[in-house]
Every structure is written in structure tokens, then in C-alpha cells.
């Protein structure tokens, strides 16, 4: 019962602090947040907790966001976690690559706050 009333946990993985702030501001107080600056930190977070959704940047220092996503999907453990890829690389090719890697949604930078909020909401509800 307690778990039901708990607000959903969202992992925000982006090396840019303002972007992490923006995502939190856009999604609002309805969620709990855990942040990661790179893939290494994101993997640490996944070991300790199981977030309801991941908002993932592509261009990260070291391993890229898409590499992390592919490995996550390959392991199978994170299959259930919806992943929203947020990237400044937003050509049709970039979107296709992200979806192929296992993304559930793709949001280009810059984005409309309402769009991101509705995508996250829809994916968590599903």
C-alpha cells in the first residue's frame, strides 16, 4: 500500500546541470528524482534502486547514452523500465538509432515542457 502511494522515481541522466534542473521543473513535484552525470553513475543508481522511468541524454562523457541503453536492454533486467531519450541530435537518423537501441520515446532538444511531461506521464501510466 505504501509503495502505491509513493511518488514514482525518475532517473535523469544528463551531464548538464541546467538540463537536469529543467527536467525536474517540467515534471514537477509529482515525481521523485535521482540524478546521474554519466553512464557509470546511472549504472550505480540502477544497482540500488529501480526507477519507474529514465530520462536519458545521448552525448555523455565516456560511454554514450545509447550504448548504455543497448546494454540495459540486452541484459533484460531493465526491460520494463520506460526510457525517454532526450538529445540535441534529432535528425530522423538519430531518432531511428535511439528507437532501435530500445528507447520508448524520443524528445529533441530544445523541447516544449508540456511535451516531455505528457510523454513521461503516458509511459509511466502504461
Amino acid at each position: 500500500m505504501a509503495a502505491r502511494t509513493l511518488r514514482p522515481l525518475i532517473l535523469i541522466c544528463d551531464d548538464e546541470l541546467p538540463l537536469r534542473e529543467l527536467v525536474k521543473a517540467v515534471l514537477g513535484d509529482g515525481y521523485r528524482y535521482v540524478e546521474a552525470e554519466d553512464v557509470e553513475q546511472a549504472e550505480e543508481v540502477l544497482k540500488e534502486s529501480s526507477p519507474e522511468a529514465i530520462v536519458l541524454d545521448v552525448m555523455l562523457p565516456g560511454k554514450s547514452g545509447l550504448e548504455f541503453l543497448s546494454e540495459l536492454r540486452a541484459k533484460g533486467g531493465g526491460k520494463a523500465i520506460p526510457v525517454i531519450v532526450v538529445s540535441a541530435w534529432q535528425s530522423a537518423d538519430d531518432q531511428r538509432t535511439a528507437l532501435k537501441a530500445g528507447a520508448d520515446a524520443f524528445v529533441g532538444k530544445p523541447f516544449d515542457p508540456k511535451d516531455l511531461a505528457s510523454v513521461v506521464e503516458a509511459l509511466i501510466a502504461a
Partner: protein
Amino acid sequence: VIAVSALGAAAIGATLALFFVANARLRAANTASARSATVSAAAFDVRGQVIAIDVALQQVVEEYNAKNLAQWRHASTSWEHPAAVLERAAAATNPEQAQRAHALRDEIRSYIDDYGEPVVGIAKVSPAAVRSSVAHTEGTLRLDQIIRDTDAVARSSAVIAADRSAAAGKLADQASIAGVVALILTPVLLILLGVWLARAVAEPLRRTVAAASEVAAGNFDVRLNDRRRDEFGDLARVFNTMTESLAVSRSELIERADSLERSERHKSELISMVSHEVRTPLASVLGFTRLLLERDLPPSDRQRYLEIVDAEATRLATLVSDFLDARLIEEGRFSLRREPFDLRSLVREQAEVTLGHDESHDLALELPDRPLQIDGDRARLAQVVGNVLSNAVKYSPEGGTITVGAAEDHGHARVWVADEGTGIPPEHRGQLFQPFYRGDAAAAGIPGTGLGLAVSRRIVEAHDGQIGFDPLDRGTRFWFDLPLEAAANGRR
């Protein structure tokens, strides 16, 4: 060609000369034969006359009368003419024969004067006395001698003629052999000449045509043998020079096309990189602005969001101006604001700025005790050290120690930055300082414009310095050298 032609002509000439000589000899032999016949005929005539003299003398001895006496008188003079003829003919043969014929004449005259006439004189008074065997025997002996000598003259002439004839015949045989040899040799020489001409002219010509066709087909590596000393050698040298320069121009064109293609590719990479770099702060600015406009936020949040918008907009402005600045420097459109300063302080400052808040990298600072005084543009050189340092950070994502140092080295100040990062693959080392060149960085997700090192090189070279790097077992060491102030002043 000339040598072979001359050889052929000489052979033919020698054969012809041999024929002429043989012909002349044969004609001489013929003449000798004719002369020998004349001598034989004359000798025969003389022989007949001598016998007539003997007969007339015998008749006088047997019966001394007017008729026989008249016959004796006639016989004792009529031999003179044939003897003279013989002597002339013999003289034409050789001096020896002439001498023999002359001696024969004397012998006959002596027979008439010393024997014939006295016998006739004695026969007039005492025919019985002259009929004695003694007188008769002496006459017979002398006469036999004369006839033997006459025959000898004729025989000698015949022998000489036969000798000459044999010699001429031998020469004619030799001439015939020489003619046959020349007949065989001439076509052989002609064939050799033809083969030589084919080798000397046709073959190189064929090779030149083949080579020219190759060049026309685009193969500029073809070369002709240029070691010949004749006109074909000259042609080959000119041809080779031509193909070499064609090859050089073509490779230059290819190189230029490649470099254009490379620079196009780099520019399109740059455009996507710049748009990415711009979109990231733009996303914050637009996102927070939209939130501020659409939502009713508590004042504390509003303030915080506005601060973020301000910071990100500033970052955007800096990014754009940095980029423009980099372009200007890259194009060489900048001037240095030189001032004397200690390079150590600049290095320390930049190391602090870049690595002061970096928790994943350890800093090792190696600075000398004595100042490194140089005369340069402090801000631009700070840019260089900053670029090299931020590269060291970006390209060693696993962390490690970054060593930053400076030292005096042969009248120069050397600054170096060594990381323990990924290192530079050999295939990228040559183009590292090319503008927009990023190697595999874009694929690896390492941000940047590919302008940092190109700009750094421009700045260092504007200071009469040098920039380079050494691959390490682990990571890379970048360095640059600048003239120390004393050295710089000394050169001015």
C-alpha cells in the same frame, strides 16, 4: 649504321679490286703466251737458217763451184733477219732471254766468221783438207751447240709463259673464291643491317608509341629507357620528364580534391557539432522561459530559473563569440598584444582553472624555480594552455594524473601537458593540427569543434614558437616551445 655500311662497301670493293687484278694478270699471261709463241717461231726460223748455213757449207766443201758458193754467201747473211726478230722477241720477255738471244747471234756470227769462212777459203785451195774428220767434227760440235742454244731460248720463253699463266690462273681462282664469298657475305650483311636497323630504330619507336598510349590511358608510371646516347635517348628523357610532371600534377589535383572533400566533411561535422553545442544551452533557455511564462511559480523558483536562463544565455553568447574568435585566428586575422611576463604563473593559473574542480583527475605540476620570462600575448597563450589542458581532460575520461610542466630548454621555454588517456591512433597523428579535424572524437561523443589545436598552432607560430606532441605508453604529451625574452630580444 655507318660502320656496318662501310664494312659491306669495303668487302665489295676488295672483291672487285681482286677481280681487276686477276683480269690484268690473265691478260699479261696471254701476252706472255703470245710472245712465247713469237719467240718459238723465231727460234724455229733461226734453227732452219742455221741448218741451211750448214747445208750450204757442206756443199761448198764437197764441190767448190760458183753456184754453191753463191748459196753459201746467201745463207751466211739471210739468218741475220730471223735472228734479229728472235732477239727483239726475247728482249720483250726478259733481260735474261735478251742476253741469250744476243749470245746466240754472236755464236752464229762467230761460226760463220771463225769457222765457215776459213773452211770456204781452205776448200778453194785444198778441198781434201777440209774434208778431214777433225775439221768436220769441230763444225758439227759448234753447230749442235748453236741448235741447242736456239732450242733453249724457245724453251725458256715457253716456261716463263707457262709460269705466268699458272700464276694468273691461281689468282683467277682466288678472285672467283672471293667473289663467291662476297656473294654470300653481302646478303648476310644486308640481313644483319636490317636486323640492326629494326633494333636501333623500329624497336625504340614501337616502345615510345606503346608508352605514349599508356600515358594517354592515364598510366603516368610508365618510363622509357633513357640510357641511350642517341636521339631516342633524348626523346626518352623528355618523355620521362613529361610523364613525371604529369604524374605530379595529377597527384596534386587528387590531393587538392581530397583535401577539399576532407574539409567539406569536416565542415559538415562542425556544423552538426556547433548546432549540438548551441542546442544544449538553448534547450535550458527555452524550457525555463516557457515554464516561467506558463506556470505560476513561487518567487524563489522564478529567481532560480531566471538565473539559469541568464547563465545559459551567457554561455551561448560565449560559445558563439569563441567560435568566431577561433575562425579569425584560424584565418590568421589577429594581432598579438605582447608584454613581458613569467610563463610559470600562466601555467599555474590555467592548471588551477581547468583542474581545480576536477575530481576525476590528479594534477602534477612541474615548474622550475627560476622565472621563464617571455614576451608574448598573455591572453592568447592562456588560450593555448587552456586548449591543451581541456583536451587532456576530455581525452582521458577514465581519469588519471595530468602532468603540467614548464622548463628552460636550449634558449626556449617549453610547456608540456601529459595525460594518461586514450592516446592518439597513428592514423590521426598527421592531421591533428588541421582545422575541424576531430579524428574519432565525434563518434566517441567527445564534444568540441576541432578548432582548439589548429588555433593553438596559429598562436604559437605567431610567437615564433613550435607546437607538437609525443605519444606515450599511456596517453599523450603535448608541448610547445616559445623563445625566451632574452633570445627574442637578441634576434630583433
